[in-house]
Every structure is written in structure tokens, then in C-alpha cells.
């Protein structure tokens, strides 16, 4: 009886997820709590196993991000200069960089909790900010962690994250523009690849 109930509620949840909109704030909360639950129980991630953190991020977080949009925002005015093959490579490399950064942050997790600020979706809105804050164990000022999402088809996709008002995406704008100015789109691709390679080396060492 119990398992039958579990089965049906499982089907119901799956069906709801497929057919219906999950509100952006609900999405953020569900994913955040799911990921933190895993990190809380995983001593490997807590002790700095970046590889494991990356796997977690790829499985749970990645599907909710729009990396093409993120890359476009970071590359900004030079995006148009890149041909579609370059845009593709840029997106892949930038995704890798974001995933590594996010995963690194997870390995630094120490008993923080997340407060979810009130959120109301206005009818017809397609671009929203979901505000949360990280509450440090003990004290200090809470760190604001805001997600920007846009409506995409049936659901919502994150296209920017701000930590304490600093966008993890647009923070690259100036340096990317400088790089493109000096060495062109291919130069930017090369330095992103080099960066990701060096990150690979450190996470394997771990």
C-alpha cells in the first residue's frame, strides 16, 4: 500500500515536471536543496574531491543552465565576430570554466544554509531574479546569491548568477574583450582552453 502510494506520487511528480511549469523559485530551491543534501552527506566532496563535485554539478545543476546565453553575455559585443564554430567552442569552454568554479565552491561547503527570499512571479514575466542568501554557520554578513532565469519553452533556465552582487558571468566581460582585442576570438579560445587544462591538472591531483 505504502509503496503503491510512493509509486503513484512518483508518477505524479514526474508527470507534473514534464507537463507543467515549475516556478523559477521552486526550481532554484529544489535543485539547491537536492545538491546541498548530497554535499552534506559526502565527505569526499567536503574534503576537496573536485572530480566528484563536478559529476554532481553536471548531473543536477547543468540541465537548468543556459550556457549559450551565459557565454554570449560574457563575450558581449565580440560574440557577433565569432563564427558559429567559434561560438560553439567558446560555449563549451566557458561551460567547463563555470562548472569547475561552481564545483570548487561546493568543495568549500561548511554547514552553510540557504535562505530563500520571497518571490512572486508576475503574469507574463519571462525574465526573473530569484534571490537567496547564504547564511554562514555562526555569523558574519549573509552572502547574497541571486539567480537570473529566463523562460525557455516549458521551463526556466538560469543565465546568470550573482554572488554578493558580482556576476559570475559578466565579470569576464572586460578581460574577454581585452583578450579578443589583443589576440582575436581564437586567442580567447586558446586562453580558455589553457585555463581549463590547468584546472583539470589540479583536480586530478586532488
Amino acid at each position: 500500500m505504502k509503496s503503491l502510494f510512493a509509486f503513484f506520487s512518483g508518477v505524479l511528480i514526474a508527470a507534473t515536471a514534464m507537463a507543467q511549469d515549475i516556478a523559477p523559485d521552486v526550481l532554484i530551491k529544489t535543485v539547491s536543496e537536492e545538491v546541498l543534501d548530497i554535499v552534506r552527506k559526502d565527505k569526499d566532496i567536503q574534503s576537496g574531491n573536485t572530480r566528484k563535485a563536478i559529476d554532481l554539478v553536471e548531473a543536477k545543476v547543468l540541465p537548468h543552465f543556459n550556457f549559450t546565453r551565459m557565454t554570449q553575455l560574457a563575450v558581449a559585443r565580440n560574440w557577433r565576430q565569432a563564427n558559429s564554430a567559434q561560438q560553439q567552442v567558446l560555449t563549451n569552454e566557458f561551460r567547463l570554466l563555470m562548472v569547475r568554479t561552481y564545483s570548487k565552491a561546493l568543495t568549500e561547503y561548511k554547514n552553510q544554509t540557504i535562505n530563500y527570499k520571497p518571490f512572486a512571479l508576475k503574469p507574463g514575466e519571462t525574465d526573473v531574479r530569484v534571490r537567496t542568501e547564504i547564511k554562514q554557520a555562526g555569523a558574519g554578513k549573509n552572502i547574497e546569491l541571486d539567480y537570473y532565469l529566463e523562460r525557455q519553452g516549458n521551463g526556466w533556465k538560469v543565465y546568470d548568477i550573482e554572488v554578493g552582487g558580482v556576476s559570475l558571468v559578466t565579470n569576464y566581460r572586460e578581460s574577454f574583450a581585452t583578450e579578443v582585442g589583443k589576440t582575436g576570438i581564437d586567442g580567447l579560445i586558446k586562453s580558455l582552453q589553457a585555463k581549463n587544462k590547468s584546472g583539470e591538472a589540479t583536480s586530478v591531483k586532488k
Partner: protein
Amino acid sequence: MKTTQPVGIKSVAVALVAASLLSGCASSGNPKDPIEGFNRAMFAFNEGLDSAIIKPVATGYEAVLPSPVRTGVTNFFSNIEDVFIGVNNLLQGKVPEAVSDLGRVVINTTIGLLGVIDFASDAGLEKHDEDFGQTFGRWGVGNGAYVVIPVFGPRTARDTVGLVLDVAADPVANHEPARVRDLALVLRLVNDRANLLPADKVVEEAALDKYSYIRDAYLQRRRNLIHDGNPPREREASADPTDLPPTAQAGTPEPRAEVVSGQPVPAVLAARTDTTEAK
């Protein structure tokens, strides 16, 4: 505010403001950072100082002291800081915030045992972040040039002037006798640095060029603080019309095309289209 050596800092700061205003020589073309050459040198100096002394000491401090003790230290200095955060809120005309800051100081200094326990936050009185640089920003003073100051790190010309006032108003830096003051300043610096240790690795992971990553993060952060967490959207807004092509500003950036043209797709497939259909 994050001080180590109050002596001579004011004159250094003033000289740096003057330098940043007069300069134009070491320019690399970024209008926000006209003295990049000088700044990079100072940044390298600060990084060296950090890795040689401050970071090792902070790491040891973190390893030796249990977390509740470090929290107490953080709270103690945070409570002192709340006094002039309140003053700055008042100068910015934010009376309710200033009253709340005063309330925080009263609660934490008394039942919080001289600030060691932050009861006020639990009681719902939110901790604010204000300083004289933000107050000037609120009054409409622009950033001015970006400048990296020895020991203190990133500032803008405006925030450098703010820093001079912050230091002048800092109860810790003005405490007598000097021996206690110096000890307190060192403790505060080390404790602040220890609190930042986790962020180190993330920045190392994220930054292609640490100097510009820190610079741009600082400028974004200050902008956010001056607007108390709600700065006008800059992302595709009119602030910098050259940032994105007109079509993107009109609300239909290219990557969206696949959504417009395609059928509604399940989340798993949608994630896939993101990566394979960049046009």
C-alpha cells in the same frame, strides 16, 4: 577599515589619489583603469605580501582556533563596525537602517557580551554594509580611477577618499594605548583574511587573469553595495548600448531561436539543444 598600519596611511592614500588623478601614462586603454601598470605592480606586491605573511598566519589562525572562537572575534569587530555603519546610513538619509544599526549595537554590546555574540541578527536586525566610499557614491560621486593600494587592496579614487575617513573614524585604529590598538588591528586583519580563505580557491579556479578578475569583481561589488543590492540592470540595458547587438537588446538573442522555432521539449532535451544549436 581593514587596517594594519594606521600610521602614514592617510598620506599614502592622499598621494595615491593624486597619482591616480594625474596619471595617464601607464594606460592600457581601459577607461576604468587608467593606471593599470602601477596597479598591477601594487597588486603583485599585495599578492606577495599575502602569500608570504598574511595568508600563512591566517591559515594557522584558522587551524588553531575553533570555529566558535573565530566567530566571536568576527562578531566583536563587526559590532564596533556597526557604529559607523549606522553613521553612514544616517548620512545617506536611511534613517530606519541607521536606527536598526543602533539597535544592533545596543543589543550585541549588552546581551551579546560586548559584541561577541550576534543576537541582533537572530532577532531580525539585519547586518548592513556601509562605509564612507558608499556614502559618497550615494551622494552622486563617481568612481574615478581604479587604484590598488598597498596592503588595503582594490579601491576607486572615491573609495580611497572614503577609506581615509573610514580609518580616521575607526575606533580600533584610534584606540589607546597603542599596544592594544596594534594587537587589535593585527587580530582583525588576520581574522578577516581567515574568513576569506575559502574564496581564494574559487577565485583561482575562476580567473583567467586574477588581476582583472579581482578588479572587475570589486567594481561590480561596490556598485551593488551603493545601490544596496538593487543596482539598475546593466546586463543588456541602455547603460552600454555597444555591449550587445540591437537584436539581442530587442529581446530575441540568437540562442533563443531554437525555442521559438521548435516544439516544447522535455527538460533533458532542452538542455541538449543549448549546447548543440548555438547559431
